[in-house]
Every structure is written in C-alpha cells, then in structure tokens.
C-alpha cells in the first residue's frame, strides 16, 4: 500500500476510469447531482423551468411532454421543477451523514486498531451491537423517538451509520500497525497520537474514500425511505421520498407523479454506486493492467 495519492497516481486512475463507460456514466450523474444542488442553492427557483409551488388546476396530471419533461402533478405543478428544488436538501442530508460518520468512524477505528487490547475490544463490541440491528429499522426507531424534521433525520442516520466505517478503519489500522514505516516512526520517538495522525490516518483514508463515494448513494436511498415514511422534511418543503409518497395514490391515474421522482432517486443512487464500484477497481493494483 503506497502512501497518499500523488499526481501521477491521480492521472492513472482517471485514465482507467475514462475507459469504462459505466464509470463515465456514474461520474456524469454525480456531477449533475452536485451541480444541480449548487445551482439551486445559489439561485433558488430562478433556474427551474417553472415555479415549483405554482398550482394551476387547468394543468393537472399533464403527461410527459417537451413542455413538462416529467409531467405535472395533482395540483398542476411541474414535477421536474419540484424534483430540482428538492435536490439540495437530499444532498445536504446525504453528504452530512456520510461525512460525519466517516470522520467519527475513522478516528475510532484507527485508534482501536492501533492500540489494540481493551480499547479495541470495547469499540468493536459496541459496533457489534449496532450491527445486530437492521440499519434502516434502527434509524426509523431513533427518528420516531426524536420526532420529525431534517435535523432529527440526520441524527437518526448518524447513530446507525458510523459502525461500518469504524470497522473498515480498524482493519486498515491493524495491518498498518505492523508495517515498517510505522515501526520506524515509533522508534524515532513519535507519540502514539502523532503516529496515528501522520501515518495511520492518511494511509487509511483512500479505501474509505472509495467506500464513501458508493455510500453517498446509500445515504440518498435511506433518506428517501425515511422521508417517504414521513420522518424527514415536512410538507411545504419538497423532498424526493416525500414526493413519491404524496404522489403514489395517483399511480394508476398518472404514473409519472410518483414514479418520476422515484426514478430520479434511483438514477442518482445508481450513479454513485457505479462511480464507487469503478473507483475501487481503478485504485486496486491487481486490476490495473
């Protein structure tokens, strides 16, 4: 395992990714998602083709057309515009969940693997307990206990999300502990904290970063399921899972009302999955040639 990514490494990785059509597709989707989020966050409703909250009863249940590329809903609102304005909230939730969990997990896992012994035992037994639950169900339980709302939804997800990262970081840290450069650093008199910070963490990060990319898709899925169940953003605020829930009674009358936002969730999650999958292969020296 070489040290952190240098420039040559990055170019090689990018070249491998560019040759894989699925990776290119994943990248495009991820970039589009992040771009939309940034654009909507900066310019709000100005960039959507229609006012996302403008109801017009003459326009209800219009099918997909060049004017309304995802059709209109039960109040005649343009679905595409509503999907666009909901992007930032989903992005904010997903990136917070993955970012904070990865941070906490890497710190705890690196410490557990490096120190071993009782610290390791304690941290790993705690992760065992969390991993015994179906993640989604525990997140739902915490969200119900805390009450609805975006902040609570994030907290509920964080409770169940970090153990996987702790496990991964521990595994990496365990094998790094035995390497010669770590031994050399210790022999040179570096404190444990310094060894972890300078040598364990940087080397632990790249596999976890790959997993985190894939995990953004997961986080978007979980968020949409929780808000579908009524535990996320509350009514006036558009949110992807909620759009599906509100539209599903019209499934047989106008399928695009629930399914278009649903397919957008699928597409974005799939994009991050493809990107993560390809990134893993590209960074793995065994698949390089």
């Amino acid at each position, binding site marked *: 395992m070489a040290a952190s990514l240098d420039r040559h490494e990055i170019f090689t990785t990018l070249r491998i990714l560019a040759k894989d059509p699925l990776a290119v597709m994943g990248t495009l989707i991820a970039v589009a998602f992040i771009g939309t989020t940034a654009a909507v966050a900066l310019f709000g409703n100005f960039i959507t083709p229609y006012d996302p909250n403008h109801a017009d009863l003459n326009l209800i249940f219009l099918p997909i057309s060049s004017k309304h590329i995802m059709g209109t809903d039960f109040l005649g609102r343009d679905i595409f515009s509503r999907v666009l304005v909901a992007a930032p909230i989903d992005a904010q939730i997903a990136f917070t969940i993955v970012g904070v969990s990865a941070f906490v997990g890497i710190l705890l896992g690196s410490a557990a693997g490096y120190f071993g012994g009782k610290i390791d035992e304690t941290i790993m037994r705690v992760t065992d307990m969390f991993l015994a639950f179906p993640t989604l169900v525990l997140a*739902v339980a915490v969200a119900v206990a805390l*009450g609805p709302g975006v902040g609570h939804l994030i907290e509920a997800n964080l409770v169940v999300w970090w153990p996987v990262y702790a496990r991964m970081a521990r595994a990496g840290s365990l094998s790094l502990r035995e390497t010669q450069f770590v031994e050399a650093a210790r022999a040179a008199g570096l404190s444990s904290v310094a060894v972890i910070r300078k040598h364990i963490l940087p080397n632990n990060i790249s596999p976890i970063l790959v997993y985190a990319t894939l995990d953004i898709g997961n986080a978007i899925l979980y968020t949409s399921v929780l808000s579908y169940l009524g535990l996320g953003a509350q009514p006036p605020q558009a949110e992807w899972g909620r759009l599906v829930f509100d539209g599903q009674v019209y*499934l047989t009358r106008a399928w695009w009302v629930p399914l278009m936002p649903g397919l957008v969730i699928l597409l974005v999650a799939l994009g991050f999955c493809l990107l993560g999958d390809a990134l893993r292969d590209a960074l793995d020296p065994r698949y390089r040639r």
Partner: protein
Amino acid sequence: MVVNESHKGLIIFIAKRVALLALVLLGVSVITFTVSRVAVPDPTRAWAGPRASQSTIDALIAKFHLHEPIYVQFYYYVVGILHGDWGSDPSTGQPVLESILLYLPATIELTTAALLVVIAVGIPLGVAAATHRNKLQDHVSRVTALTGVASPPFVVALLLQLVFFYYLHVFPDSGGRISPLIQAPARVTGFLILDSILAGNLVALTSALQHIIMPAIALGFLNLGLMSRLVRASMLDSLASDYVRTAKAKGVTKLVVTYKHAFRNALIQPVTVLSVYVAYMLGGSVVIESIFDWPGLGYFAAQSIFNFDLPAVMGVTLIFAIGVVVVNLAADILYAILDPRIRLG
C-alpha cells in the same frame, strides 16, 4: 455414541456462540433502552400519548421507575421485556408483544419467499457472471445487481404494481395475503400457506401463493445484488484454485469442473452471510409490506410510524434485532458444520 474430538470441538464452539448471543442481546437492549427512554425528549408523553392525564403519567413514572437512577431503570426495562411486557399502544392500550406475535408469521413467510427469489435468481446470475467474465452475461449481472442495490424499495413496488396489476392484470390487485372473497383457513401456525395445506384448502392455497409472488419479487430484487456479487467473487476464486486446475488437467470436462468442483465450494461463503440478507429484507419490509398491504411486522411498523407510536416501533426494532442475531447464530453453526477449519478461530 462416542463423542469424538470433532464433535467436542463443535459443541464447545456452539456453547461459546450461544454465550456470545446473550451478550449481544444485552447490548441490543442497551441501545433500545437508550432510544426509547433517554433519546426521547419527553418519555412519559411518548409512552402514554399526548392526551394522557397527570395520574396516568404518574403511574407511568412509577412503573418505569423514572425517579430512580438510570441503571435501575435499565434493570426494570430488561426484566419487563423478559416477562413479555413490551409496552402498549398509547391510544388503544393494546400490548405491543401481542400485536407483534400476530404480525410475525406474515413477515417470516414473506422473508422466506423473498430469500427463495434471491437464491433462485442470484446464484445463477453470479455463476453466469463468473463463467463469462467481462462478457455480456457479466455486464447484465452487474447492472441488475447494482440496479437492485440502488433502487428505493417504493419504486420497485410501485413499478411492479403498475405493470402487473394495472396493465397486465396478471396478479390479483387486492393486496394482502389472500383474496378477501375467499374464506381463509383457520389460524393454526399463522403461516397462511402452511395453514392452507394443513386444511387441504386448495383455493386458499392458490390465492395465498398468487398474493405472495409480487411482494416477494420486490423484496428479493432489492437484495439480489449482494448474493450475485458474492457468488461471482467466490466462484472466480474457486475456478482459479489448484484443485480445479488439477481436475482440468486430469481431463474432466468443463461442465463438470464448473458445476461439480467449483460451484459447490463457491456456495459456502455466500450462504453463510444469511443474516445480512435477512437484516436488509427486514428493513425493506417496512416499505414493501405497506405498499402491498401485506399484514406483517413491516406494515405494523409503518402504521406505527405514521401514528408516532413509539412503543410499537421499539418493539418491532427489538424483535427484528433478535431475529437477525438468531439467524446469525444459525448461519455460524451451519458454517462450522460445513467447514471444520472455522472452529479453530
């Protein structure tokens, strides 16, 4: 029967695992306790309902020992759970454990059916991907797996409903476990398919099977990815192993090498992560069961979420965790029987 060394090892292994199970369950109850009592802003309101009178709340404080230190409260919480007191619905007073036992068989039935879908489709998909690496079969398997993993459960369920109920009329559109026009067999085991067979009721059996197909496909599709990817990976490993090379060198045909030598060994690992599939499926069941009106624990949980009925949600969480832990134990034991090397660890 003389107990030989190998049996002794297995018995010790199982005893250790059961002891570990008790520990994990204790940990699980620490988490459910924390969520249901400590994380809640106002536990008495959550457990008694918003319109509860002061006397009800006082009774609850006494019952939960809320004025005592936290570890005493935890002791009473565990004792309560062991005695079957899992709380009750704040609005109706219905005990949670009673509801759970009522809904449990439907969930076990659906999870089993979905597991069959995963096995029946996931294994061939994984084998085809491994034997045709980087060819069309591999790409199809990869895209199917990733789509399943990336699909929100409600999208799969709604799409299936739209296509098969509404456009093709292939499956009954009533939802639920059986057509409302049919007299359901008497509840013996609670498993409708089993009960229909026991009663010799062919009409009910047909209807029950028709009703389970769609939700089982939906739940199975979401979890196909893990199985097919694992089968592919372990199949690639065993195809590259020495014994397969030896068999090939001996002149064994490709078909026999693939299915007799490589396939059997490649199956051990994917099957032993059974508890992982079960955990995913129980999570997905909350959405799938409520869309298909399938009266199982997921449906019950979804209803309870909409009512913000915390005792019921906590009860379902606890029973699901117990289910995962027990399936995990079963898988570990199965693994140890299949592969004696494991017990050394």
